[in-house]
């Protein structure tokens, strides 16, 4: 496995140590080190990476604000361990936390969690349905029956028009490529919505049958393009 990554960390000794761990592993190629979100964003506007090692507390914008503003979905390993970030980490599909300083062994364990998503969905984007693996069986979901899809760490939740919720092992990134482009659009790192089910949009939120779905800055332009605004 060869992963490309960037390190977003303002503590030099920690960044150097992490860089050293990456080199030593032979599994991760470091494309850059940035000590603030602005510089990292500037790089990510024209480059993609598989993985971001991300500090949360940095001068200026924090690490989660970076994730809000990038248009793709890399894997993320946080280099902090503050429990108050646990909820955000869950929302942002963070793969692991590394508490600084961490041992090389612990670093390798975190890398071990960066695995390709399991194929738990069968679909053809030209058809009107998908199959998901849930509750020990393959379940057919018609595109028109899905309201939205929400990330839950290594899992996703499909919410349907009859208010059923199906949880399956998958990622928003993987689904984005597999679901019907005509019906679905990723509007946030953690959400794909069915465009045909949107009731209204207020500021940075879409509303679908009473559910409030955040729209990230990076995806807002796409949303406007697809809403058929007259």
């Amino acid at each position: 496995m060869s992963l490309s990554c960037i390190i977003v960390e303002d503590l030099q000794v920690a960044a150097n140590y992490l860089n050293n761990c990456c080199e030593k592993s032979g599994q991760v190629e470091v494309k850059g080190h940035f000590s603030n979100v602005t510089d990292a964003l500037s790089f990510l506007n024209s480059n993609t990476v598989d993985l971001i090692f991300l500090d949360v507390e940095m001068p200026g914008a924090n690490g989660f604000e970076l994730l809000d503003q990038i248009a793709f979905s890399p894997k993320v390993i946080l280099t902090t361990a503050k429990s108050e970030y646990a909820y955000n980490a869950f929302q942002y599909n963070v793969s692991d936390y590394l508490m600084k300083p961490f041992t090389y062994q612990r670093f390798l364990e975190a890398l071990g969690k960066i695995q390709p998503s399991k194929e738990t969905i069968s679909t053809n984007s030209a058809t009107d349905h998908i199959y998901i693996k849930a509750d020990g069986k393959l379940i057919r979901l018609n595109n028109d029956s899905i309201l939205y899809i929400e990330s839950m760490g290594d899992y996703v939740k499909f919410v349907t028009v009859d208010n059923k919720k199906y949880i399956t092992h998958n990622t928003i990134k993987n689904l984005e490529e597999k679901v019907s482009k005509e019906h679905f659009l990723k509007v946030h790192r953690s959400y794909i919505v069915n465009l045909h089910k949107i009731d209204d949009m207020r500021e940075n939120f879409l509303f679908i049958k009473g559910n409030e779905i955040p729209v990230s800055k990076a995806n807002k332009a796409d949303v406007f393009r697809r809403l058929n605004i007259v």
Partner: protein
Amino acid sequence: MNNLKTANAFVFNPEFDVNYLNSLYGDDYNYLQEVFNTVMHDYQSLTDNIEYNFSSGNLNALRSAVHKIKPVFGFVGLTAVQQLCQDFEQICSTASSPDQLAGDFESLKNKISQSKILIEEEKKKLELFNSNCS
């Protein structure tokens, strides 16, 4: 494999947690020297930030500044100071004014100053040790 506890190897000041350093760096004293160099390079700005935020009475920024320097002590094996920073972060979270944590801040500040001297001394010892080994 040699490690940082080996009798013939580098002898640390007892304030440093040798087992912890060993878990991070094994027997790589050259890399350890780099770590100490980097830490000393950044030390003043990190501590200035703490002092500034205490003086300005911004408890959240003070907590954040202490949080930032905390792992530095881990990287150089001063695990007790790292824990002291952790404790102070907790105090910052619950205090409502700088006066409430003045005593704790003074203790932390002294410990951070003493640590700078310890790290500087250990850095020099490591430089000497590595140059003799090469």
